[in-house]
């Protein structure tokens, strides 16, 4: 298991959280303590163990291609922090999606 400091500013950037320098320090220390606790998992013999994504085995839960009512537009736009006409208005976008 990798050890060492968490690059908190990088992780915060991925998570889109603005953190102050003191927060970076505080969270860094707290996350470090948690990772230390988590380090215990190293001791488990997991080489031939399958990963559990879902604890209850189930497959092929699909729905039929049948239309259901949508929400009224006014309801969804009323909930928006900012709207313009029939659209959601969002601040300036700086780059294309990745």
């Amino acid at each position: 298991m990798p050890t060492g400091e968490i690059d908190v500013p990088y992780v915060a950037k991925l998570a889109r959280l603005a953190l102050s320098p003191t927060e970076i320090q505080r969270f860094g220390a707290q996350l470090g303590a948690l990772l230390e606790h988590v380090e215990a998992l190293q001791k488990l013999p997991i080489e031939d163990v399958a990963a559990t994504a879902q604890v209850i085995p189930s497959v092929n839960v699909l729905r039929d291609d049948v239309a259901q009512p949508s929400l009224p537009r006014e309801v969804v736009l009323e909930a928006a922090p900012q709207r313009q006409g029939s659209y959601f208005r969002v601040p300036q976008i700086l780059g294309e999606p990745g």
Partner: protein
Amino acid sequence: MSDVLDRGAVEIARAVAARETSALDLTEAALARAHQRDGAVGAYLAITDEVAREHARRVDARLAQGARLPLAGVPVAIKDNMCLAGTRTTAGSKMLGNWVAPYTATAVQRLLDAGAIPIGKANLDEFAMGSSCENSALGVTRNPWDLARVPGGSSGGSVAAVASGTATFALGSDTGGSIREPAAFCGVVGFKPTYGRVSRYGLIAFASSLDQIGPIAKSVEDAALVYETIAGVDAADATTVARPVETARGALRDDLAGVRVGIVREFDLAHLDPEVRAVYEQAYRDLEKLGAELVEVALPTADYGVATYYLIAPAECSSNLARFDGMRYGLRVEAADVGATYEATRAAGFGDEVKRRILIGTYALSSGYYDAYYVRAQKARTLIALDFRTAFERCDVIACPAASSPAFEFNAKSDPVSMYLMDYYTIPMSLAGLPSLSVPCGYVTPEGGRTPLPLGLELTTPLFAEAALLGIAHAYEVGTRHAQKQAPPALEAAR
């Protein structure tokens, strides 16, 4: 009217169905009581007077038309991470402080269909992340047994509402113990069904592979009734299980003859405070007295539960909470551009605990760490589930403490990891998806404490064995009558 409100859900529904009282009159009484009593406790983020009346009128009309409603007129508190159309649904977060849900969660809808009356939206740790309810950004909930202490969490408001008698039962959600630990702290029954039994549609997600809705009630019988009402496959939740829900109330029993109760070797009571330990040792003896056979079982990987959980749950949460970005609903803190707006909104909208979990989860999933943390935790999860399977070859139910201590005082756990360890006894069952509940099992008066505080016995059965679990819990409950021996002082004072 007040005496009707003090009855259990089964009896209230019977009284309302028999027109002993109208649902509306009973609802008015329940609302009046909630307004009167909740000031000191703070179980609710909102008391939903108008919605409650509207549903009460509807219940009266349906009863007049001959409808059979198993929860007719029964007041329910709904944890505020479940959507109820037309009400603010906040998840205890500034992020959703003013968000009005335009739809209703499946589990809530099933209660409404059965005639239950939503009295209010109950407080919780923000986005259900916490074990004390102190992480709510929108209100403080106090333990009705000692107002200086936390109610537990994250379903703190739900348990406090039931314990203080302002709701007959409540819905909670449990990801790593969020129903069972607070139920233990507040002396009520808290039941987490098997993962996939109750639809999560409309439950604001914390960790999708662990979250499960369940009832919080004054008795096992009420919990069974509510469970039967909300359980079952839902086309809107692909992880619900298409498997018939056995009648739980039919399985309620009065003794434990022939039941093998597993006592977990690794859960050494010697670590506990001697008074607390004495209560649990008595609980085990009581199980035996009721006819059960105690057998020792091993859960060698249970000790890794907290470490496993604090990788898997934050990983899922980091992704689930990405949608709170200030674009389509909820809080927006406007900044120069979209990216800066995301960051400012999320910085202002989330509390520290939520940020911590988002950070740890983002880290655990990030490039270079995914296999070392996330995949390893998923494999540990497999081993934990296997341990339970092996244990259940030797026993029908596992008994252990629901928490290692009674409710603690506010601000007692300042370090996150010590707070995380509060869920030591509940997390392994969550990771294994098992049905598990907490039932009151005695009281301790902490050193320097003013009043006795309740403790909870955690009982766990194999996957989908809810009926057996509720039956065993009922036998223990009626055999010991702990819940009847004491009442929360906050409740006494209100009387």
